[in-house]
């Protein structure tokens, strides 16, 4: 079983690398923002399988944290890209 899973991780990682190269080359910010998403799916899948291969059940916890924080990084990037493009948003009012 481990051999099969290892091959699968290898495939996923190769696809991840290919995708990352494509995504990081841009041209726009939007393309690059996809990097976080790509890792959020491919990377987590690889992590989960690696956890099974190495019999490390904590890998699932790591995957949970990764899922949460990959979102966070992507959201931060989206927010910053928005601000960089629209610097003249009206001044903020108090939040609810």
């Amino acid at each position: 079983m481990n051999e099969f899973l290892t091959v699968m991780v290898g495939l996923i990682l190769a696809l991840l690398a290919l995708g990352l190269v494509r995504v990081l080359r841009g041209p726009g910010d939007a393309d690059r923002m996809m990097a976080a998403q790509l890792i959020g799916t491919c990377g987590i899948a690889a992590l989960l399988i690696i956890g099974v291969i190495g019999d490390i059940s904590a890998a699932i916890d790591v995957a949970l944290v990764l899922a949460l924080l990959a979102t966070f990084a992507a959201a931060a990037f989206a927010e910053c890209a928005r601000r960089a493009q629209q610097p003249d948003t009206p001044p903020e009012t108090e939040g609810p």
Partner: protein
Amino acid sequence: MTIVPALDLFVAGVVLIVAVWTVVARDSSSAVVGFVAYGLLLALVWVRLGAPDVALTEAAIGSGLTGALLIGAAARLRAGESSTSAEHLGGVGRTLVAALATIVAAAIAVALLSLPDPAPSLAPEAAANAGATGLGNPITNVLMAFRAMDTMLEKFVLVIALVGVWSLAPDGAWGGRPRSYHRADPEGALVFLARVLPPLGVVLGIYVLWVSADHPGGAFQGATILAAMWLVVLMAGLGDVPEVGRQQLRLMLVAGPVVFLIVGLGGLLLGGAFLSYPQDWAKPVILAIEFAMILTVAATLALLVAGPPERSAEP
């Protein structure tokens, strides 16, 4: 199991590709995104190295918070990027640096490979002394008992760094709030995320702390998740950063290290040593310190990301 080593080569290969990208990318924001990706991938490496605790830390800090910091900075610096042709190194210089860096890296690699085998390890000693705290996670034992001094000082580092960041405020804004995020589209996806995700993040963050007693996890990693959740709320405009002049905030920011210090001195006064724990109560005391720490660290990390106060306090 013959094929498993190939797995490590794959992981290392992908990590290296992204690392190279981070260094050579032309514009800063794509380098930063590369770094975020690198940080996330590093979590895989740490799992492979049998260190899920560190994988959690790396996933949380290395890409999450550091990524948010760097991304924010890259966006703000974009305007000034074109003007930086300074201290540029010519081709010869670059080659020279590359050659020297290669030599240093090679020396380190040789040194690493020449390390004695079997490697010296404190793992048996850590295992033998685990009973003193009753904790099942050896790393929590190291952080909270064997090397508690480092952990205490590390919290102090965070406070000092925060004071350093605050010291960069314009004088008029002292006591005020850090730069705000512009108000996001109230029906946008970000606001939706900020309404739904944080409760889950709170549960997950405290879980990571709670589980650290016996399994991989930790107060610091949990605090990072909480900080990230708070930052999502801030980015979505659902809340505002508190004024740095507020005493309650300051109290919260030092509560963790102060509790740590008090417990440490208590150990000293009760006849033990500084940072020693009462024999039968070690586990609850350590968990109590960690709970005190999580809020402090979460607030400190979030404020470090938020930056120095730039809006003056309300009159």
